[in-house]
């Protein structure tokens, strides 16, 4: 069994496409990988906040209430709104001015993050983030019939909360004709293919403080995503440490007692939403957020805590034998 492995940079991250052998007359895996790369490049062009001619930038600059938008942009807005709804407003796609005010107004791709351990020493008191009482995201809607995004002018949108997960899911939708595959958009991963049920992938979870392998997942389908403070972290103009995961209630970087959260989900968008919501919720809220689908959190101390299905040791289930001898 062979797989085609393609890695490249896009969306300010490393992207990796790992595609197995074609089934049912699908084109060769190398061709599918190249198409996937082209799709992600187009995705980035349309949805980047840092490109002034992107569909997203044009939407944010438009002064009309109803703005014509491409199908891709409408889907991305829809995914962002779903993430906000699912997280009760914690994953808020409208914090554009706030994130720019912290110093994240241009891409940080390729920039080395500030030392997280030092940032933790200087960070304010830990507390869980809360949704913004204003909930601006509730005033955004998508009108697919008319091909428009509707929102009050001045309400800005950012796909950052669900963008890479959505890209992974959309590439995965194009890979049904392959035995098994991984679409990894900067750590937001989607896995699929019937052969993966027999030969699951091992996914390593990187520890945000040490860079070492903190956990190994064995996945045959679905999504997995990690949010952490270790990569996009910098000093602001006042010399304080800042990062890109904001508390919607204050518009300031959230210091919740967690430095990383990894979540499993049926899709990469779901996993990305849950991982961000978990990190923003702090340890107690994260346990609740990740209880159903499973995940793990990394405390400020570096302690790794598996949650939900990941916390339970593997079990072997024997069939129950009924009185009449029939196994169920």
């Amino acid at each position, binding site marked *: *069994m*062979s*797989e*085609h*492995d*393609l*890695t*490249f*940079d896009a969306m*300010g*991250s*490393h992207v*990796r496409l*790992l595609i*197995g052998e074609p089934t049912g007359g699908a084109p060769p895996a*190398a061709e599918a*990988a190249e198409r996937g790369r082209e799709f992600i490049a187009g995705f980035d062009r349309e949805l980047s906040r840092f490109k002034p001619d992107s569909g997203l930038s044009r939407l944010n600059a438009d002064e009309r209430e109803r703005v014509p938008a491409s199908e891709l942009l409408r889907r991305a807005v829809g995914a962002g709104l779903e993430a906000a709804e699912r997280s009760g407003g914690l994953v808020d796609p409208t914090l554009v001015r706030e994130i720019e005010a912290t110093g994240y107004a241009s891409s940080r791709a390729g920039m080395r993050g500030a030392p997280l351990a030092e940032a933790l020493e200087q960070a304010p008191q830990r507390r869980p983030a809360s949704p913004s009482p204003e909930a601006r995201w509730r005033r955004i809607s998508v009108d697919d019939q008319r091909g428009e995004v509707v929102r009050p002018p001045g309400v800005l949108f950012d796909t950052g909360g669900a963008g*890479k997960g959505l890209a992974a899911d959309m590439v995965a939708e194009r890979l049904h004709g392959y035995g098994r595959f*991984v679409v*990894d958009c900067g*750590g*937001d*991963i989607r896995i699929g293919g019937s052969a993966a*049920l027999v*030969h699951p*992938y*091992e*996914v*390593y*979870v*990187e520890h*945000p403080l*040490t*860079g*070492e*392998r903190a*956990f*190994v*997942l*064995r*996945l*045959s389908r*679905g999504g*997995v*995503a*990690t949010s*952490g*403070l*270790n*990569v*996009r972290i910098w000093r602001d103009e006042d010399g304080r440490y800042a990062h890109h995961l904001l508390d919607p209630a204050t518009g300031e970087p959230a210091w919740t007692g967690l430095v990383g959260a*990894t979540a*499993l989900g049926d899709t990469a968008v779901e996993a990305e939403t849950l991982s961000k919501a978990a990190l923003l919720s702090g340890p107690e809220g994260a346990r609740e957020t990740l209880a159903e*689908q*499973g995940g793990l959190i990394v405390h400020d101390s570096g302690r*790794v805590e*598996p949650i939900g*299905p*990941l916390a339970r040791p*593997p079990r072997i289930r024997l069939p129950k034998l009924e009185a009449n001898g029939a196994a169920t």
Partner: protein
Amino acid sequence: MTEAPTRPQTGARRARRPGPAAVIWGSIALFAVLFALFTYQLSAPSQPRQHVLVRKVVKRRVVTTVVPTPGESTVTSGPAVSSTQSSAAATPVTTSAS
């Protein structure tokens, strides 16, 4: 006054009761016919039955192992790198913040 003569009843009009032998043989014949019909019905192929398919849906999710040993970052940077190799030789997939 004269009386009208009474007409004698003819044998054809009088109801004749079957003899015991006829009743016995008739019963046996009827039983045999019904038995034959019943047997035929049982042996004939019946209508297709509706099958009830019981399916057990097992949702498999994860099997996990804590691995305390150090690992390495796996995603290479720079220009696109493309290769085809055996699955066993592929670099492991890593999830991390980005």
